[in-house]
């Protein structure tokens, strides 16, 4: 199977040490089956290209492809994955459907018919990390934030005050460069927390073609205006009541660049993935001073117009395993997938690599000293899983994603008004949807 060095490094171990391979064997995988990893780069876009090359050419091995939850569906729609609903034992399917994070499963199912075509290996969720110590010093009570995040107004005021009082360079750092991470995740979260949606609510995420396009909705525009306020303070196209808390450089920042100032103690808060918790939550970093929550919000779920939006929101990332239809060892590959759907295997992957188990109930089952700081925030992870919002990953998503992140980035930078940017975007998305 394909994997980046992070997973490749824990697949096998020297001697008797714990490894994923050992866990798979313990879970009942035939001892004759050994999983060989074809190591690929960690960059998701580059990995998609590798997968695409192999599958378009009908080439195997790799017999199992590790696919980003953001681009599994296009491969399913091109008949380049094995239908697991038809091939896996009922017992395994039952376990997966009953226990796995539903939002992750949605990214691995065929949009028509709902058959499962890939097995989630681990989900990833976007968290808001903050310096509890600094915010408390500025006179705010963060006691309930973990599972009951504040509204954006309170959050931004707290960040501003904490930054000013501690004399830091930055308040809140996030990702807003023109790249997939903006459309799939950070903007998706902000928009959802405002009760907005790309395609009229969470029901229409995976069915391209006949669905409403709602990016020019007032909620979405307000979400952009708030981000403009965070970046520019009181300026054109901003929103009253939201102070400047983000450096303007966020419009060219991705994950690592936004994490660096926070990890270096120069920022109060950062939006990032679970690895950032592992990195900044250790005792020699911020330890217990690190607060973790899901996104603040502006419009509650009850006030929202569409289904399953509004309230706090968490973008969904993560990776799925799909079996290549061109494999000569399909039988064996399916056995490997079956073994992955096992409690002990998931916990081994979590312990060794820090990757969240697709069955998130297991997070609380481990000792924080075993897996690092993430386990300390088990309740936040649980609440995140309940508020996870997947990107609308259809076969058209990569094309639409590029249109979205360009428009949002332009509006964030102020080169286009939010209204104009979203109106143009709505037209472009309409054209794209018409291609179905």
């Amino acid at each position, binding site marked *: 199977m394909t994997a980046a060095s992070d997973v490749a490094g824990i697949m096998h171990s020297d001697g008797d040490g714990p490894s994923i391979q050992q866990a798979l064997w313990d879970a009942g995988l035939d001892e004759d089956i050994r999983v060989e990893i074809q190591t690929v780069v960690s960059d998701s876009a580059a990995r998609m290209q590798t997968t695409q090359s192999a599958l378009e050419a009908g080439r195997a091995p790799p017999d199992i492809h590790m696919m980003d939850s953001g681009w599994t569906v296009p491969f399913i729609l091109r008949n*380049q994955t094995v239908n697991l609903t038809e091939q896996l034992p009922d017992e395994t399917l039952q376990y997966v459907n009953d226990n796995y994070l539903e939002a992750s499963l949605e990214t691995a199912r065929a949009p028509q018919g709902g058959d499962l075509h890939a097995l989630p290996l681990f989900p990833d969720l976007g968290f808001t990390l903050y310096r509890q110590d600094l915010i408390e010093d500025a006179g705010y009570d963060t006691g309930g934030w973990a599972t009951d995040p504040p509204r954006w107004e309170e959050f931004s005021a707290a960040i501003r005050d904490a930054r000013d009082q501690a004399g830091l360079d930055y308040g809140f750092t996030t990702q807003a460069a023109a*790249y997939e991470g903006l459309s799939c995740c950070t903007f998706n979260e902000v928009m959802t927390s405002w009760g907005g949606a790309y395609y009229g609510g969470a029901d229409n995420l995976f069915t391209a073609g006949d669905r409403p396009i709602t990016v020019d909705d007032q909620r979405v525009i307000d979400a952009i205006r708030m981000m403009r306020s965070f970046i520019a303070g009181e300026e054109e196209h901003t929103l009253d009541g939201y102070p400047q808390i983000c450096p*303007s450089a966020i419009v060219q920042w991705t994950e690592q660049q936004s994490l660096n100032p926070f990890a270096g103690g120069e920022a109060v808060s950062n939006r990032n993935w679970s690895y950032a918790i592992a990195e900044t939550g250790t005792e020699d970093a911020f330890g217990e001073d690190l607060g973790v929550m899901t996104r603040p919000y502006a419009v509650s779920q009850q006030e929202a117009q569409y289904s399953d939006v509004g309230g706090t929101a968490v973008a969904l990332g993560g990776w799925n395993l799909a079996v290549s239809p061109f494999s000569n060892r399909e039988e064996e590959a399916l056995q490997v997938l079956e073994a992955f759907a096992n409690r002990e295997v998931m916990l081994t992957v979590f312990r060794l690599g820090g990757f969240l188990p697709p069955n998130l109930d297991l997070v609380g089952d481990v000792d924080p000293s075993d897996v690092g700081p993430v386990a300390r925030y088990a309740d936040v992870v649980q609440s995140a899983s309940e508020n996870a919002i997947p990107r609308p990953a259809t*076969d058209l998503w990569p*094309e639409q994603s*590029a249109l979205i992140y360009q428009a949002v980035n332009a509006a964030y*930078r102020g080169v286009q008004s939010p209204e104009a940017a979203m109106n143009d975007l709505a037209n472009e998305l309409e*054209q*794209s949807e018409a*291609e179905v």
Partner: protein
Amino acid sequence: MTTETDDGTGIDTDPVPDGGTVTGGEPGPSHEHERTGNAAVNWMESLSEAAYAYLLLLPAFALLTLIAFYPMIRTFVMSLRANQTRGLDPLGGFVGIENYIDILTGNARLARQFLDVGLTSSFPFIELGTPLFQQALFVTLAFAVISVVVETVIGFGQAYVLDQEFTGRRWVRVAIILPWAVPIVIQGMIFFLLFQPTVGFGSDLMQSLGIFSATPLANSRDAFIIILVADIWKSSAFMALLILAGLQSVDRSLYDVARVAGASPWQRFKLITLPLVMPALLVAMLFRTMDAMRVYGLIESTAGCTTVPSLSCLVVEAMFGGTRIYATAAAVAFATALVIGLIIGVYVLLFRDTDGGMY
């Protein structure tokens, strides 16, 4: 190839006892065979210089046809079919030049367009669909023209310096050539980090001078300038090297004669150096133009293809962007090849009469 064989056979049956005189004394079964071989040699020797040159070039052309023209024709055929984002078959039915119309009118299924201008009834009769710096054709042409002109001028200056005798010349040579040794990705990272506000001083400096916005790597115009400067910084050394080779082949005694005749330094440059260096200069410019027209790696490692879309960027994005639009990708690739071909054509036409005969 066919003509060649026909000719060979013709000579073989020719009654003229040309080869026969040499091998005639040796009877035996190999006689016929050797006669044929000699006939071929003689035929080749009877060819004109030009025809002989073409004959020797044939294998290379055959190879080129196989690895360059065949894929191009395939690309063209693909570009005439429809996109198909679902199902196993990557391409749909025949749609003629529809994909080309789409990319030339700014309606391609791409985040950045190849060309996006519309016609209007009032002056200046064209309007931009998107800003110029976000249209791949304009970006690439502007990049090629500006970078090649500036690199040629700077490269000429550097070559002139390198051609002089002075103490410390070795160190200056190293300093001038050093950027050329930097790999593209490292070069890109240097400029990327220079304009990261938390790392480099570039953003603050350029912003305080009022030249750049606060986030130059996200701004198409600023990022274009950054990439231009990055390329000039590196590739001027390449121009300097090639021009230096030309300079060093100039016969020094010509300058002595010119001096005796009372020519000014400018006259010496214009009448001796420039014409003699011209062939080398043109080859260098042609190479740089082709390189500049396919710029990709530098952009990808600095500001990214979204901010500064080049033609190669579009091909890569269309091909590997995730949504399967292979027909559009093929159309963009073929159009890119055409544009580059046209520009090379301009070089060949403009300079075919140049002294020294480039071609």
